[in-house]
């Protein structure tokens, strides 16, 4: 019996040594730094939002507002192809979202509002409705939640989308299909909704 046990121990030691040699120290098969730092869905959503909001602000202020309203070189138009114009900030955002959706289904994002020009951008799910309401009341705090869509669980976050440039306000207030025409600079005009797929 002792013989058998010590035999077992021996084999375990050999196997352990082999594993260490095979996979290197620390059990990291690639040998590189460990990438699985276990980011939470919330951290990922916040990070994605930081990028989206920054790009969106840069486009609205340094491209659209500068070229359209200040230097009067080119306008932004919903029919940018036909009008040889700049895409609207919202279209720019959606084109990016569509492009990303061709590459991954791990996350998705959209730009919605309780006062939408395009009625397809109105909130649809309960969480979207609740989220947009909340960020309209307190834009400083994102809204987080979970929802199930088409049988898949998502972590979802809603962030306030604010009038960062006078161009936002002038265009929305003047638009024929806008249900609101009293936006002011700095107002919350809608929200960015980010969903992370939970497996």
């Amino acid at each position, binding site marked *: 019996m002792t013989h058998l046990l010590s035999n077992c121990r021996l084999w375990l030691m050999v196997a352990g040594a082999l594993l260490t040699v095979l996979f290197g120290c620390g059990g990291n098969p690639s040998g590189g730094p460990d990438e699985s730092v276990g980011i939470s869905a919330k951290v990922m959503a916040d990070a994605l939002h930081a990028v989206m909001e920054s790009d969106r602000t840069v486009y609205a202020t340094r491209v659209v507002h500068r070229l359209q309203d200040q230097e009067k070189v080119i306008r932004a138009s919903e029919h940018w192809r036909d009008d040889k114009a700049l895409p609207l900030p919202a279209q720019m955002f959606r084109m990016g979202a*569509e492009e990303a959706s061709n590459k991954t289904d791990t996350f*998705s994002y959209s730009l919605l509002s309780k006062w939408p020009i395009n009625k397809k951008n109105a909130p649809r799910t309960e969480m979207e409705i609740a989220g947009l309401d909340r960020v309209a009341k307190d834009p400083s705090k994102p809204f987080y939640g979970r929802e199930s869509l088409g049988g*898949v669980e998502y972590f979802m976050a809603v962030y306030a989308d604010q009038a960062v440039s006078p161009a936002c306000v002038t265009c929305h207030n003047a638009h024929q299909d806008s249900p609101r025409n009293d936006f002011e600079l700095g107002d919350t005009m809608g929200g960015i909704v980010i*969903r992370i797929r939970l497996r």
Partner: protein
Amino acid sequence: MHPRFLTFVWIMTTVGLAAYLAIQISGGNRSLFLPGRTSDGHHQIELACDACHTPFGGVRQEACLECHQAELAAAEDSHAGSKFADPRNAGDLARLDVRQCITCHIEHRPEITEAMGLTLPVDFCHHCHANVVVERPTHRDMSFDTCASAGCHNYHDNRSLYEDFLVRHGNGLPATIPAALPERKAWILREGVDRLPLTAGDADRTTSATPELIDAWAGSAHASAAVACSDCHRSQGSLWADHPSDRVCGSCHELEPQGFVAGKHGMRRSADFNPMTPSQARLPMQPDSMSRTLNCGACHDVHAVNVRHAAVDACLSCHADEHSLAYSGSPHFRLWQAVLSSEGEPGSGVSCASCHLPRERRRVAGEDRIVVQHNQNANLRPNEKMIRDVCLTCHSLTLAIDALADPDLVRRNFVGLPSRHVRSIDMALSRKN
């Protein structure tokens, strides 16, 4: 009878039948497997089963896109699949999964197939746009089966129907103004070869060439561009061929064959079948044209390469439907004749090709060119696709929309005026005022 004998007969019949079907599917008579009449769009290639079907995998979305993707992108597809990728569309997609072509276009179901190969009830827009009556009070008295059938909207291509386009082009323009199509500026692969034009005396022919053929060639664009007999008949140093294949044409004319094999005239080629013949057509054709082969030479008289012949006479030598037969009585034909007799400005005639093989602005090799789209279907179905590049050259948007929405007028080849008026422009204008 003895049960063992019956079992034997049953096994033999089954094995025999299986063997027979296996032989048929692997090259015999595949039409045995067609579950129902194929739609007008696909009937020419219906025996290329694997063009659409993956064994045990159904019809893949990619199979549709392989042929139709470029066209949908060019149409700025209003309902492209990527627009529905966001999971917030799950509710809509549960009612109608518009990311899949086969949700709306099922093959081999003649009993439910509508125009454009649609196999859903034509009021399908209501699945997702039921709210339109609230958003657009002007739509209150309209029914959902008229969204796409009355000249107002298309499902995929709305480039000449969107609201601001209606407003921009709808402001009191005259119905018809004299104008000309842009001049062709073809893209030719060997362009830039600096050779002097050739004359009849330069023909490097064989003895089989008749004086008529030499004359036709000597007066052609090919002779002017110094394309000699041997350039086609002995292409790339091969032996002399009396009837060179279309591949020879493609060695200089790169874009045209691409359009040709994408349309009804050449689609059999893209499935590696023998070329189409008029006998295979579902439209009425001239009886004496039935066995002709649809290759480049069917329309382009290969020696004279006269594009005017290709633009009308070639078409009418096969097509014998009402619309084609009515052409010679149409105002468009009168304009065409004026050009032929040099009374009209170049480009001001309206041939079959003006509308069905339209001139398109394209950027090729870094240069803007006007090339002829050889996919005759590219701007035909739905016919509003024609408005931007063709009709608006000479007509107001109002006339174009009304005329194309009037099937009788289309049959009469636009002899007369539209019998009804589509209100879309008026509605768009009323909202802007």
